[in-house]
């Protein structure tokens, strides 16, 4: 289905809105989605109870994580919450750490992680153990922090593919992914993980600043030559510029519909038909997983630097239902297993 120029203009305008909301520079970030009016309510601290300092920007998602994390931790730890904003400085963070003297710091989102990295640069250690959540490609950034571990924010391909396999009748054995050189290592890791579930991840590397033609050529290669069963779209903003989506991705994907799994909910849109499915972090479950990690650190001597970064265990799924029904051999009986339906 080729896009007419009016349609393309509409798509571009829509995408500008969608992508502007979800993208910054470099790897896609999803924090600070919407400010939340209500404050974070801590219970009063108790004498002799170790504290956990939670540093986070205020958003719908960070609040969800915080809520679940606090529920799990508060019987054993005093949870002290400090929201950060663009005004917060490393010195502010240093004052908080000195005042609270936490047994552990939980950093939620890129902003909190970056502030903590700056704070660590300015002050000689030792530093309390830190657990980082909701930070983009944390495993690749971990070396910026001392005595830190965390949970990756990106949903692993293996989780995505196994879910996808359960949603459609068509086989999902080979999955294509377009990536820039920066993400080659990440794709290689994901290929290894996907092989555990007998899914072959087929990568196609484009340049650092690809144009629509490169995207179309990559998709053509993956779908026609490699005959992949699905496309997995990485959360890389450079590949998700509105112009690339309208003139690159959509042109090819509408001609040759196969399941397309994205990692940003707003890219599943019943007017665009770009992402047919999205697999997103389950923020409530992420809070529980983070609490597990804090308890594990407490039992093992708070050696965060020696504790591996975990992969997120839980996802929420989104479906473009009309598209999936018409084009992708969707299994109707799995509709109840999907978190959000777009139609």
């Amino acid at each position, binding site marked *: 289905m080729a896009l007419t120029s009016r349609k393309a203009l509409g798509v571009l305008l829509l995408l500008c809105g969608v992508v502007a909301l979800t993208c910054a520079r470099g790897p896609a970030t999803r924090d600070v989605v919407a400010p939340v009016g209500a404050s974070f309510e801590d219970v009063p601290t108790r004498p002799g109870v170790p504290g956990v300092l939670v540093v986070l920007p205020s958003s719908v998602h960070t609040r969800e994580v915080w809520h679940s994390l606090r*529920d*799990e931790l508060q019987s054993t730890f005093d949870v002290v919450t400090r929201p950060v904003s663009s005004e917060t400085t490393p010195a502010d963070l240093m004052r908080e750490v000195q005042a609270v003297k936490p047994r552990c710091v939980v950093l939620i989102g890129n902003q909190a992680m970056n502030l903590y990295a700056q704070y660590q640069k300015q002050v000689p250690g030792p530093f309390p153990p830190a657990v980082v959540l909701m930070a983009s490609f944390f495993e690749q950034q971990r070396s910026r922090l001392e005595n830190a571990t965390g949970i990756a924010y990106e949903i692993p391909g293996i*989780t995505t593919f*196994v879910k996808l396999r359960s949603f459609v009748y068509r086989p999902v054995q080979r999955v294509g992914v377009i990536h820039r050189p920066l993400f080659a290592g990440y794709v290689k890791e994901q290929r290894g993980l996907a092989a555990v*579930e007998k899914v072959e991840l087929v990568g196609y590397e484009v340049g650092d600043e690809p144009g629509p033609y490169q995207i179309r050529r990559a998709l053509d290669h993956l779908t026609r030559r490699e005959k992949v069963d699905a496309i997995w779209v990485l959360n890389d903003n450079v590949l998700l510029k509105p112009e690339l989506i309208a003139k690159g991705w959509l042109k090819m994907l509408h001609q040759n519909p196969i399941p397309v799994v994205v990692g940003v909910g707003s890219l599943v849109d019943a007017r665009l038909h770009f992402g047919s499915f999205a697999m997103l972090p389950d923020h409530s479950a992420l809070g*529980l997983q983070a609490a597990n990690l804090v308890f594990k650190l407490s039992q093992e001597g708070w050696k965060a630097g020696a504790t591996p970064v975990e992969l997120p*265990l*839980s996802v929420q799924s989104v479906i473009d239902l009309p598209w999936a029904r018409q084009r992708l051999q969707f299994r109707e009986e799995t*509709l*109840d297993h999907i978190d959000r339906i777009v139609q």
Partner: protein
Amino acid sequence: MMRSGGGPALRAAASAIARRRFWVTALLAAGALLLSALVAFAQERPRLVVYLHTEVKSRALEALLAQRMPGTEVIVCGRYRDFTRELARTPDAALALEPVLQANALTGALKGLRGGRDTEPYVLLSIGATIDAARFSTIVLGAVDLLGRDGTTQFVANLLGLEASPEIKFVIKSEDLLPLLQFQSADAVLLPEREVVRTKNLSKLDLQVTPLATRVGLPAVAFGTEVGRRVFRPLVLALDSETNGKLGVDTWR
């Protein structure tokens, strides 16, 4: 921008602002009335709180039960803590696994049955080989956070026949158990036997089943009020097989 000679214009603007204020106030008042009516309506309806780990999403289960139980309010909780918070609001009835009801000093007055029994077996699922009982205390085990951290730890220890539970990786949903095996974060995961087929269908891993001797109570309904008993008992007994299947039972007694 107007800078002078604004007398009539200012009066007109003031009048427009007054009109707008009137309408805003009226709309707010109407909204408040509507909201309080809705709250009153919701409070008057008998309330059923549900806490079950099924493959059906909470949203879908809530919609299904609400459809099957017209005139009532159905709340499906995904987390144990949300369930206990709802229990604190004294619902008219609560539907959960028997051990969950027991942990909250509730008695299942209506018991779910499958294959004629009100309990079901649980198993360990692991990759490549079954788990020898002698290793139970040293494995890392994935389990759904059924009863909160302490309650689940005790629940797991009981199921494994141990005094102290092994290290547990808690998850919120049963579907999150498979990733623990895929990422090799756990040696085995604990789940009801009825979920084995579904999990095996999802995965290409060589999943092996270790049966456990202790059985666990199936979903049951406890009544918190007489209204709850009067309203929900017939509604639950009349549930169709599709709904019962999604709740993990065949019938109720």
